[in-house]
């Protein structure tokens, strides 16, 4: 083989550069982010973590369809607890930092009792502002490089 030295050196340098991302991050495994805010609150999620990890996107899609199209606003979890089908009023209460964290279960008469407490005559902003960048949603989606467009319309600060 002509120019054996040059070729082999070239191949070694080439392979080195190609595999740079792999050996560079050796031993520096980044763990997927946990749902820290919810865990600190100590609240249990509406379904178990395994189920939510795999199905939360489908669940949110189903909620959207049921609320918008069928006007069905109450979710009955597999353990029989009831929740309002709402990203902003249920999920974010535990998964983002807000003023009134947790406590998302509905009493037996469902939404009605809950809604009675809200002063509907006021059209002033009454919902909470959430810090998007520190929310569990944002951190995990950033890790997974997924960009959902929920926040284009649904409001967080």
């Amino acid at each position: 083989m002509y120019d054996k030295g040059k070729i082999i050196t070239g191949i070694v340098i080439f392979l080195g550069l190609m595999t740079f991302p792999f050996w560079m991050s050796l031993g520096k495994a980044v763990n997927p982010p946990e749902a820290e805010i919810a865990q600190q609150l100590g609240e249990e999620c509406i379904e178990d973590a395994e189920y939510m990890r795999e199905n939360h996107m489908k669940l949110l899609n189903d909620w959207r369809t049921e609320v918008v199209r069928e006007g069905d606003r109450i979710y009955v979890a597999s353990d029989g607890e009831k929740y309002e089908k709402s990203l902003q009023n249920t999920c974010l209460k535990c998964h983002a930092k807000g003023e009134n964290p947790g406590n998302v279960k509905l009493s037996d008469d469902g939404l009605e009792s809950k809604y009675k407490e809200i002063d509907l005559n006021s059209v002033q902003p009454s919902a909470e502002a959430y810090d998007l960048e520190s929310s569990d949603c944002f951190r995990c989606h950033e890790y997974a490089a997924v960009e959902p467009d929920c926040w284009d319309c649904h409001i967080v600060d």
Partner: protein
Amino acid sequence: MKISRRGFIKLTGAGALGLGLLPVKNVLAGDHSNVTSDGKRWAMVVDSRKCGECNDCIVACHKTHNVPEIDNKEEEIKWLWKEKYEHAFPSQKHDFVDEDLKKRPFMMLCNHCDNPACVRVCPTQATFKRKSDGIVMMDYHRCIGCRYCMAGCPYGARSFNFNDPRPFIEEINKTYPTRTKGVVEKCNFCAERLAKGSLPACVEACPNNALIFGDLNDPDSEVRKVLREHYTIQRKPDLGTRPSVYYIV
């Protein structure tokens, strides 16, 4: 029965022609009513005699639903707005309409038609008629911004977001989402408030009780009472859309 090859082909041709005519007949002469809702059918009566100079209903509506305030007429977004008599009821106008009627403002909003043109033309079913209460709703998640519905709606009740609406909303109501660039929007009869058992924001805000809201399917409801006692008109009823908004003139 004996049939020649020529006879058979003729008959087949005639049959095929007949099948081809059926859809044409359905388009031209069919009844497209998707009548109506199973349960309630929300409706509004606008008593134009009581409607004054204020804009309380518009402000309440637009504040509640984060409707942006855009000055440019070509890009403005409106759920509830005022119109002159001759524009609201073009087929009713004539040269000698009384002065009072000429000056009076008429509140315009989505008519939540019983036979909505917008729903028929929507290619993604982003706009649809709710069976449970007759509201013509929009699922903004599904709207692709084709604006067929705007072309289909004979009342101009729909607006298109040419830009991100957020910079044009003065004070955001955090209990309700905004829309995004590239979707159509319109009045939703306050479906989110009705779900909680309260009246639409405009009805509640009106200081003169000029807006009356209720269930058309309930003979004892207030709208039915008002409709029984007054002469009311609808916008462009000849189009067969069967609007759910009535006007007392």
